[in-house]
């Protein structure tokens, strides 16, 4: 399993979706569920980091460009 830090946003999100679906289906033992859930939490955090980064880049770009606008 790929370390979380190396995952891109789409990979993290898709894996997160998969984790949620697996948990919703149920039928897993507690240990597996717990482990899955913990990875899900990390994936969600990774996704939020990616999104926060993206948002910042947009904001920065806009802030840099704005003074040039007529």
């Amino acid at each position: 399993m790929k370390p979380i830090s190396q995952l891109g946003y789409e990979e993290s999100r898709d894996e997160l979706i998969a984790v949620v679906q697996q948990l919703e289906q149920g039928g897993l033992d507690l240990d597996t569920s717990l482990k899955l859930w913990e990875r899900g939490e990390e994936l969600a955090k990774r996704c939020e980091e990616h999104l926060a980064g993206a948002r910042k880049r947009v904001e920065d770009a806009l802030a840099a460009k704005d003074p040039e606008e007529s």
Partner: protein
Amino acid sequence: MTTPAGAEMTDAEPGKSPDNPWPVRAVSTRVAKYIDKLGTVWVEGQIAQLNLRPTVAFIMLRDPAADMSLSVMCPRDLVENAPVKLAEGVQVIMHGKLQFHTGRGTVSLRVTEIRAVGLGELLERIERLRKLLEAEGLFDPRLKRPLPFLPNTVGLITGRASAAERDVVAVAQSRWPAVRFAIRNTAVQGPNTVAQVVDALRELDADPDVDVIVIARGGGDIDALLPFYDETLCREIAKCTTPIVSAIGHEPDNPMCDLVADVRAATPTDAAKRIVPDAAAEQAMVRDLCRRGGRALRNWVHREQHHLDQLRSRPVLAAPLAALTARSEEVHRARAAARRDITRLVSAEADRVEHLSARLATLGPAATLARGYAVVQTLPAASSTGRVLRTAADAPKGTRLRIRVADGAVTAVSDGPEGIPK
């Protein structure tokens, strides 16, 4: 002296009385002999009648000053080869011998030589010169130099205070007030004329300012105009490099100078008209041309202005920024859309992640852990997976444990189950 009636010598002289008349033959013979003794004579007269026969010619020679005539006989050849064309009214000098014709009792001059007299001889000489100069090509129209449109200085050779001088100067000045003359007054008749006119011609021809020369003289008879038939003067005129206008005499005078000169003016006044343009007429023409030129130019400017205005009113020129503005707006719209989209995308993803997180939270033990519960797992030796600790017996002393709480996990080592002695 012979006497045909010598037999009657004893009586009264024959022919002196009616008793002793001479017969016609005796008289005629005596007259014939007498006239024959007169020998040859030179006689001048005007031809009053000319009657050509196949071999002889009969001429009635009349004295122009008196009503007297002489009949003349000569070979026909002599008339045809005469130095001037013989016709009624022509003055000639004849050389001949008087002869009495016994048959008709008339006297006539048997002529052996005919000469032109005075004017006739003069004209003859002039005619010879004319033919010579013509043969040399001095009258060739190709040699005629054109007159300048507006001469710097007009050379004028004319008699002192002559009508010709006044005419040329006055007419030229009335046409072109600024006209300048270099006037050389010379004799225009008499023995000094040719030499003086030639000197003046050379002088004016050498002057670089003079670019046309007029030789002007009023009318006169042939004797007065004679210098202008002179060969030296004609050759000098032909030699000049400056165009020469000859205005000698009046129509129909036709001196040789006129033929050699570049332009032949009928009169001094005519010469003035040839050498300078009519200032008033030229100015009127220039004014008219200026007016027409100006109008043409104004029309042209007007037309071009109109054209330009039309071009300028086209959208690309009238609003040159329109295209840029349109594109700029396009860019603005695209940028705004892109910003909207990226923001929306990020927000949508954020919602999605938030939603997933929420679902994850409800699926997982997070809520339970938050209330203070913990999940304990045995930490297995390498390779075997850990398991949730469900019974105390599963964690004998020394068992490595992982305790998961709400915000993380800690590891611990079991001291063994409580209350159970070893």
